[in-house]
């Protein structure tokens, strides 16, 4: 497979000042400041292949956005190497800039006082998109995101969801090969979130665009990503598929059995693997491989089983496990 993004030993350090609270300390700070350093990204390496959708996951301040900014050439790394489509982003070459897009949920590239259409037309000129390509792309994007009605309305009058969709359109008009998305669904309602997810999924399938996205919403990641990179305090702590993550951090499934009547503890003991007993409802924790056999065993026993449920431990709690060690 074609490697589109290669990151090697990337490090970025921010400097900052510490200030104790209060006016007195502010005055002290005026004359004497101690410069402190924080490693936002600490020696990370990863590759991304063509057409992949990779999710970047981590708590606030983990270094996700910092990494995206370095990949798009806005921030200069302190150490390490980045190659995207064989370009060094730091140089901010126009050739490179024409082939990627960065969409930020918390930044606005549209002209605030004018309708989105004006910004679309401006991007057409900035990226040198031909008239035909522009018309085709615009048509496709506007239809897919259902924003026909708003492209002539002033941006400042749009709702957050409408604006986010317009941002996406503006960023995709030049058919980027690589798309960086920084929390594209932040602050949106459930329906708008789903719209954007579905759109991205389809777009990726159709165009084979390589997508790297960060999000706090697990659903975004599960719905979209082939692969997951989990980052915490500037370091990568997991890099692999969601399935493997589940296997590694959640080796067990939960089997919930509802009985007709309460079962004595003694009888249950024979069954082993009891996790929790709540009156007629009993939970069993069973490893993935044994689930099938165990379920058959219970159903074929002479216990009065009313219903049975097999469930996955939810991803959110797995991620929590990963972060807390």
């Amino acid at each position, binding site marked *: 497979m074609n490697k589109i993004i290669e990151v090697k030993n990337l490090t970025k350090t921010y400097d900052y000042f510490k200030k104790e609270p209060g006016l007195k300390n502010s005055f002290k700070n005026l004359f004497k400041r101690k410069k402190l350093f924080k490693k936002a990204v600490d020696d990370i390496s990863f590759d991304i292949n063509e057409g992949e959708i990779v999710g970047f996951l981590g708590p606030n301040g983990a270094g996700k956005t910092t990494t995206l*900014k370095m990949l798009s050439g806005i921030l200069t790394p302190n150490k390490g190497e980045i190659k995207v489509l064989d370009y060094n982003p730091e140089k901010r070459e126009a050739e490179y800039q024409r082939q990627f897009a960065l969409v*930020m949920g918390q930044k606005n590239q549209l002209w605030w006082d004018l309708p989105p259409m004006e910004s679309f037309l401006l991007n057409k000129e900035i990226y040198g998109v031909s008239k035909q390509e522009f018309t085709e792309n615009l048509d496709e994007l506007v239809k897919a995101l259902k924003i026909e009605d708003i492209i002539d309305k002033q941006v400042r009058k749009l709702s957050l969801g409408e604006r986010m969709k317009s941002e996406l359109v503006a960023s995709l008009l030049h058919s980027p090969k690589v798309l960086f998305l920084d929390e594209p669904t932040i602050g949106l309602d459930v329906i708008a979130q789903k719209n954007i997810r579905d759109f991205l999924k389809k777009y990726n399938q159709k165009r084979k665009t390589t997508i790297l996205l960060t999000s706090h919403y697990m659903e975004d990641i599960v719905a979209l990503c082939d692969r997951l990179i989990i980052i915490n305090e500037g370091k990568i702590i997991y890099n692999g598929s969601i399935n493997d993550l589940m296997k590694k951090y959640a080796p067990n499934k939960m089997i919930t059995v509802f009985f007709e009547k309460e079962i004595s503890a003694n009888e249950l003991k024979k069954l082993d693997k009891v996790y929790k007993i709540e009156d007629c409802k009993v939970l069993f924790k069973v490893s993935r491989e044994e689930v099938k056999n165990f379920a058959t065993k219970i159903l074929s026993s002479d216990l009065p089983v009313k219903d049975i449920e097999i469930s996955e431990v939810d991803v959110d709690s797995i991620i929590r496990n990963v972060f807390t060690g």
Partner: protein
Amino acid sequence: MSKYLLIFYNSIQRSLIYRFNTFSLLFIQIFVFGVFFYLWSSIYREGGQIGNYSLGEMVTYYFLVIFLSLIIKADVAWRVGDEIRLGTMTTILLRPISYFGYTFSRLAGEIVFNTAVYFSSFLILFLFLKDYLNISLNLEQVSFFLVSVILGTAIYFLFFYMVGLSTFWFGFVWGFNFTMSMIVSFLEGAVIPLDLLPEFITRMSNFLPFKYIMFTPISIFTKRTELTLDLLIIPLVWVIALYFISLIMFKIGVKKYEGYGA
């Protein structure tokens, strides 16, 4: 090139939306002019001449100062500074467009819009003040004046563009910007005509670019100077020099950019 042209048009469109802002600026500047007008009228009531300015010449001087201030003094430093401080520069750095070109085209749009609006209102004001003003024009003088104003505007833009860029290092430059605006107002001759100031200030201003923003174009317009080419060549050299310094400054400074706010 047409991307910059489009930014220029969008900027004019944007100004059209915020008409109220434009007219309130006009109002305050005419008010300031009124204050100067009465101040100098009462000063002149005592004696007939200050330096080599008669009352009519003085009023004409301030009339032009106010007009030029309105059209050329867009607040570049504040805007560039905010884009760095709030991280909105990110969306421009991402795209294949130069930040300088982007800022310049936006500003040029505003300047052209302002010129159209203020020129017509000043034409009306001129009709009222006709008897006080000393204006007689010929073609050569007007062409010199126009070129001189364009060069002055460029100097003003470049200088305050750099003040804005200094945000890369200082983080917040509102105070610095304010101080520089005051100093520049003084050194360009917007407060008091430069030839009325103590000689060492006049001499110092010859080594600085600022007098070409106001004092030189106004002197050309009011025929207080011979029309020699160095009136245009020296500011042109300044424009080129400032342009290259600003490029270098941007190149070094942008490495410190952190794109705050997301």
